[in-house]
């Protein structure tokens, strides 16, 4: 711990508010990076993730393989996309509970339409449109009628779930070649490693999200709303529009996630993805985004998903846990993780 040497000699030229940069040592800057509300949690999460991965590798044979890591992406592709959409919403201080149900709905729509012979070229865009529109409705409900996001999206969740049943109570499997292709195709990366096309899509989504949030006016407005909606409004920012669009984005991402999920399971099932919204939210928050909005990064959320994923993986590798110990174990790992994260990011007083 280094201290800041009091700068005694007055600098005649400089005004009375010296630049902090001028009075910071390297150590301080590192500490700042970790303790700053912006970057801190993400960095720590990254480090902890690596640590967990290493420990797992030490504990189980065949764990420390590249494929295990890649499978985190393969298996959680849809969840990553959800988390990305959720990040937008949470950054504005909102929340979206409908995502899980919307995933299921997209699956049902895809399965039923494909079953009745529609072409994927039509189905997929259609799904994305439908879910985006659903998001739009939610957004308008939140903005115009000032309904709290929690309820508005909960209603959307009921609706989506309900529509699933309306479409069909049975699970519908998908045999349509394109989808099957997406499901089974493996893109080799050499060394026996491989990923699915979904992973590629996910990476693209992440890239776009990062760009939007950090290099577009819209993206910065999202942060602004999280920092203070009223202030943002008084600063003349398009608060209303942005707030609505954020839910459209979340809706779109849910739709896309639904499609990826369908690639993954090759079926539509009304009961699928129950409780996934919690996973998504958890991932985002673990990734260092504040639920109150304003602080957080997409990459953080991605890390969050990977963390949840690796906890799952460890469980299956452990393989000896009864149903209840499984749950206790997950809770425990989660706890250890967030406490470490908290301790490492907390400011020294």
């Amino acid at each position, binding site marked *: 711990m*280094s*201290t*800041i*040497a*009091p*700068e*005694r*000699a*007055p600098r005649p030229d*400089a*005004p*009375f*508010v*010296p*630049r*902090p*940069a001028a009075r910071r*040592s390297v150590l301080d800057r590192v500490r700042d990076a970790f303790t*700053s*509300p*912006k970057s801190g949690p993400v960095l720590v999460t990254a480090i902890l993730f690596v640590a967990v991965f290493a420990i797992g590798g030490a504990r189980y044979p065949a764990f420390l393989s590249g494929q295990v890591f890649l499978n985190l992406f393969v298996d959680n592709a849809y969840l990553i996309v959800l988390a990305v959409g959720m990040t937008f919403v949470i950054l504005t201080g909102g929340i979206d509970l409908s995502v899980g149900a919307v995933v299921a709905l997209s699956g049902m729509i895809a399965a039923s339409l494909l079953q009745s012979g529609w072409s994927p070229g039509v189905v997929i865009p259609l799904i994305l449109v439908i879910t985006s529109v659903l998001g739009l409705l939610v957004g308008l409900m939140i903005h115009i009628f000032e309904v709290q996001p929690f309820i508005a999206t909960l209603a959307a969740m009921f609706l989506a779930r309900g529509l699933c049943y309306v479409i069909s109570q049975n699970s519908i499997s998908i045999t349509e070649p394109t989808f099957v292709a997406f499901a089974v195709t493996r893109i080799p990366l050499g060394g026996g490693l491989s990923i699915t096309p979904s992973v590629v899509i996910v990476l693209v989504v992440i890239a776009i999200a990062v*760009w939007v949030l*950090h*290099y*577009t*006016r819209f993206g*910065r*407005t999202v*942060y*602004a709303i*999280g*920092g*203070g909606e*009223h*202030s*943002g*409004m*008084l*600063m*003349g*920012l*398009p608060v209303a529009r942005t707030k609505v669009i954020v839910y459209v984005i979340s809706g779109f991402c849910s739709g896309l996630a639904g499609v990826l999920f369908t690639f993954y399971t090759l079926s539509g099932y009304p009961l699928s993805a129950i409780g996934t919204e919690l996973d998504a939210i958890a991932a985002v928050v673990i990734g260092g985004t504040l639920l109150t909005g*304003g*602080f957080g990064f997409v990459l953080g959320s991605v890390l969050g998903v990977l963390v949840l994923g690796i906890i799952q993986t460890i469980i299956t590798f452990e393989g000896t846990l009864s149903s209840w110990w499984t749950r206790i174990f997950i809770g425990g790992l989660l706890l250890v993780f967030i406490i470490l994260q908290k301790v490492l990011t907390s400011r020294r*007083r």
Partner: protein
Amino acid sequence: MLDTAQARPPAPAAHPEPIVEMTDVSISFPGVKALDRVSFRMFPGEVHSLMGENGAGKSTIIKALTGVYGIDEGTIALNGSPVSFAGPAHAQDAGIATVYQEVNLLPNLSVAENIMLGREPRRFGSIHWKAMRARAAELLTQLRLDIDPGSLLGSHSLAVQQLIAIARAIDVDARVLVLDEPTSSLDADEVAELFRVIRTLKEDGVAILFVSHFLDQIYEITDRLTVLRNGQLVGEYLTEELLRIDLVQKMIGKELATLDDLEKRVKQTANEEDDAAVPAFVVATGLGKRGTIDPVDVTIGEGEVVGLAGLLGSGRTELARLLGGIDRADSGADVRIGGKPVRLRTPRQAISKRIAYSSENRREEGIIGDLTVRDNIILALQADRGWFRPIPKKRQEELTRSYIETLNVRPANPDALVRNLSGGNQQKVLLARWLAIAPRLLILDEPTRGIDIGAKAEIQKLVYSLAENGMSVVFISAEIEEVLRLSHRIAVMRDRHLVADIENDGLTVDELLALIADGSAVDEPDIPTVRTDDDAVAVTASHASPSQRGDGA
């Protein structure tokens, strides 16, 4: 009784046509008629000011003009054509740039973004961060503000933030620039910088609305005044044609005389006080915090008013926060009150020792917006008693009533949500909260920020009579005259350490300004202090302990 009938003064020769023309505008909120058929106009190349007591309706006019509030009746015209803005964004597009009362910026974003947001320079469709920072830095230097544009806004003091807000407004090349109490926590230097900028804009034919409760500033910069009282128009005047006395009279509808002798009384008491030897009340040795305040020895006598003077960012607030237990001091744990050692690690502990700190940032750290005036006033007292010993309703009532009266809070409704009060009235409520715990040491950081002259005098009188009854006061204000008028002793801070401590007898503004400006005193080990009696040792910059010095350099 309102002389609205009075003929308006002539339009300026250069620009005979008003750019903004509000006619018979009315706005009412549940329970309040905030504006009652008020007319108001602005001319290009003129600095116009809205004058009025707290709650008179100044901010409301501004919010009506910029579309924050819809208007119930009346018309708004821009360049002769009627307009009605859906919101600030709309108004901005129409060329009206506004700095609203209270800082409305985003603490989670960088200074640069707060200045440029919505107008970011872009390259290939994506924000050009480098250019943005550069532009921001330019604007900051224009206001002689040397801070890192990349730093988080939240890390800056209120004054710094206020300047940033101004920087944002002047960056838009607007035809109308609206500044609602932009100088409330700026000191002379920044105000001077601001005025320099305003004058240049004025040259370019920009119409500027400048709201302030500082008459000196008004008379220095404005050409035209519109006076409001209780949401009604009193009249429009040319500044040079209106004597201060008349202005005040028109604002508060009272003769200035009353105020006048009041200030005399305050001055007298001030002089009497000085001779009496004051027993030391608070003694803190080596009080300091890494990175903010270098260790200092502070002594405050009973019934003594110590003024903290210094420039923006000089560390007054932070020293005050240490004394108030808001921030935890990492050196100088040894604080004695009335001889007994106490720990000031949390506000709670401080309050239990009857030490009250009233924050300069009333919106973030002061008022609880969604609670009523009553709850806000009793909050600290109640918190100190503990939740299971509620203050009896009757007691609550009298407390609230009495403070609403003494501080003249408008509307005088204990059940009004504080959020809906005007800026100045919120400040009064905050003050009431601290007075309610009958503090023995009252630390006031910019307590008169945004408060009208009438109320300001009231507050000063109040503080003074309390001091006479033995309450110690630490007083911070950007208005240097105020500090001089109120304090027995003045401690001067510069660049986060103490540079001087002077007995205030007949100290003049210029002398003090000189002391604030030149920090040469820093290097000398012992600080010149006029004070002689021992039991109230002067404030001195103690030598930092090795641990404070050694590493890090």
